[in-house]
């Protein structure tokens, strides 16, 4: 197998390359650093969590005897006297997907070691994420004002409120954690920790710009999960 000067393996394409990587020693995923491998495996596990949440939501939607509320009406906003269905959700979705774009750009600039632009892009991503959570808080308070509770709601099946608060809450929790870590990563990029290989405060391990990519994986995942929640909860 050909090797580059840095010891990183030149990857072979196709099934032969796949078989070669997995039957080799040391690493099954060549040129993938440990943190990135860990994030992928964690996300696989997290996928099962969100899948279980969504499947459970579908099951109770089917098992409940009371009609399911119409999400288009419940999640509508009245703008200047006109009822616009799903307006807030549409904005939230747009913002979250945009944040994935800025995150991808941040990863790119990170690998180019452009500290300044990377920091700005990560901060912009965090800002998008925070405004998503903010709008979700607005949506929650609006629904709570209208009498929606986890155990009952004026629109129909009580499971509507239960599933809504549980699933969007769990997703919002993921976004919030993501925003916190984005801010931490942004600070590290800004200070130049990744250029110098400074040690982390807790882990005492050296970090590099791969951390931005690992962070990006998590962020894209949270975004992707939202697409499924949007499709199965709001549009269905």
């Amino acid at each position, binding site marked *: 197998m050909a*090797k580059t000067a840095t*010891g*990183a*393996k030149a990857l072979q394409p196709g099934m032969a390359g796949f078989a070669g990587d*997995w*039957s*080799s*020693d*040391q*690493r*099954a*995923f*060549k040129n*993938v650093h*440990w*943190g990135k*491998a*860990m994030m992928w*495996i*964690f996300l*696989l*596990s*997290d996928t*099962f*969590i969100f*899948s*279980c*949440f969504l499947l*459970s939501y579908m*099951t*109770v939607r089917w*098992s*409940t*005897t*009371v009609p399911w509320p119409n999400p288009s009406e419940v999640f509508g906003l009245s703008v200047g006297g006109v009822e616009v269905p799903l307006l807030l959700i549409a904005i939230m979705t747009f913002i979250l997907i945009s944040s994935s774009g800025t995150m991808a750009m941040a990863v790119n600039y990170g690998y180019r070691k452009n500290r300044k632009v990377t920091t700005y892009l990560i901060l912009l991503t965090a800002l998008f994420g925070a405004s998503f959570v903010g709008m979700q808080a607005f949506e929650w308070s609006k629904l709570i004002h209208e009498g929606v509770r*986890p*155990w009952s709601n004026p629109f129909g*099946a*009580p*499971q509507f*409120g*239960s599933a809504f608060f*549980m699933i969007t809450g*769990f997703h919002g929790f993921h976004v919030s954690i993501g925003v916190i870590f984005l801010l931490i990563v942004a600070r590290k990029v800004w200070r130049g920790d990744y250029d110098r290989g400074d040690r982390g405060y*807790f*882990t*005492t*391990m*050296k970090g590099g710009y791969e951390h931005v990519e690992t962070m990006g994986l998590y962020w894209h995942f949270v975004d992707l999960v939202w697409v499924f929640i949007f499709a199965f909860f709001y549009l269905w």
Partner: protein
Amino acid sequence: MSDITQDDVGYVAPAENAEQDLYHPKSWITKYVFCQDAKVIAIQYASTAIAIGLVALVLSWLMRLQLGFPDSFSFIEPADYYQFITAHGMIMVVYLLTALFLGGFGNYMIPLMVGARDMAFPYVNMVSYWVYLTAVLVLIASFFVPGGPTGAGWTLYPPQAILSGTPGSDGGIILMLVSLALFIVGFTMGGLNYVVTVLQSRTRGMTLMRMPLTIWGIFTATVLALLAFPALFVGAIMMLLDRILGTSFFMPSIVELGEHLSYSGGSPILFQHLFWFFGHPEVYIVALPAFGIVSDLIAVHSRRHIFGYRMMVWAIVIIGALSFVVWAHHMYVSGMNPYFGFFFATTTLIIAIPTALKVYNWTLTLWKGNIRLNTPMLFAIGFIVTFLNGGITGLFLGNVAIDVPLSDTMFVVAHFHMVMGVAPMLVVFGAIYHWYPLITGKMYSEALGKFHFWVTFLGAYLIYFPMHYLGFVGVPRRYFELGDTQIFTESVGQLNAFISIMTFIVGFAQIVFFYNMFRSYIVGKKSEMNPWGAASLEWMTPEMPPGHGNWGKSLPLVYRWAYDYGVPGARDDFIPQNMAPKDVPMEKKARKSTRKRKS
């Protein structure tokens, strides 16, 4: 794999991973308490798991007191009995066996056996243990809240788990669910470590197909756990919401004590699906590490390479994959669609094929082996027999038509205790004896070890064999007492009393084990390096017990698989994994016969 490689050029690929950056402890606290060394974390995990396991052992005694001698012990109320059952089951399955195999043996063996200095993320690994300990403490706390621990049975089926008629429905069930959620969070941190370490930080020359089967078992089990625990996590969260906020995920419309509760429209069977989507892979999370470890014990102590290594690896992987599509065989009587039963019975019985393959291969490894009947080997052979027994009763229960009458009888209790209680525990004991010299540097007392084996092994059979019979005559499980039931003869009561006495004998015999471990640690004779003549990498450390960073100056290079025992032409009856072909001491005369054999 069994090719004789002496004449091959010992090529080892250049290093891809940078030398691992380790945290070097500076104080006693960071060395022994908040420690990032996987070996110390392993011992912390194992000690905590065994300690809580002893609580579960005492709980099982209390249950057996009631079952064996009803009406004799007034301090055991029906509610207590259900609390004992629940806590015993939950502790044994989750907090003891899962934590011991993956957190204990996984942490100790993975870095050593794949030739790494430590786990990939030592800090996360440390946090994993402390979250696990918190989960155990929360579980213990549930014994001291008003109403006591939950008595819902270890499966925690709603609606009864959170209704007021069930013991511990005040605080007990809440703490149980919180504890489970914490356990899963902690385990996920550890599990990510185990998987990444195996996949990404093996030493030079250590290919996946040169790993000892112990690592294959632990690795596959960890993958299963990472994908199965999410279902339990979600189930626990939803049940917490049902219990605390009054949502109705699992709760149908219910009348309790003449009062219509506010629940409506939930699906109790949804919880069963979530629980068993976790619960069945859980069986293999416990069994696969046991399979792996026992393969290594048998190979080492019969001085023979494991028969059919590749098949053994693929059997582990296939069993792991199949374990995700059999869960509803626990639910034949749950009222689910009967057509599901056909599907799940079929997939369940298919698992018998790779499992039987493993049992045959263990037997064929023993065949014509140079068997040393020392304590680890006795436990390993005990495991094969016990697992075979438990597996055969599994064929009964896997079939819908036979399962329906046997469901909820003592037969089920006997089956799963045989297959996932006794069998894995025998492997745990065997593994502890086998690796005791490595971990402590001392040798245990062989006589006490053998005594421990025979009492435990024969005792376990005397406990669980009669229980099958009780199940056949229809004795139900989870009953506080049988009372004046006419259909049961007097012999049922006598058998129950006999079983209870045996549990006390076997339980107390474990004192011999602990005495042996502690005494040998203090006054035992120092063990030589690699006392068993094992070929796998964990015995090749420069010091024994291995020091911080495991390998001294440089990482080992691996040239062969872990099972080069009795290689023709070689002088010794084993060749260590890290011995270069040119360094292997040969018998001069036999030189010709060492030519490469066609596989």
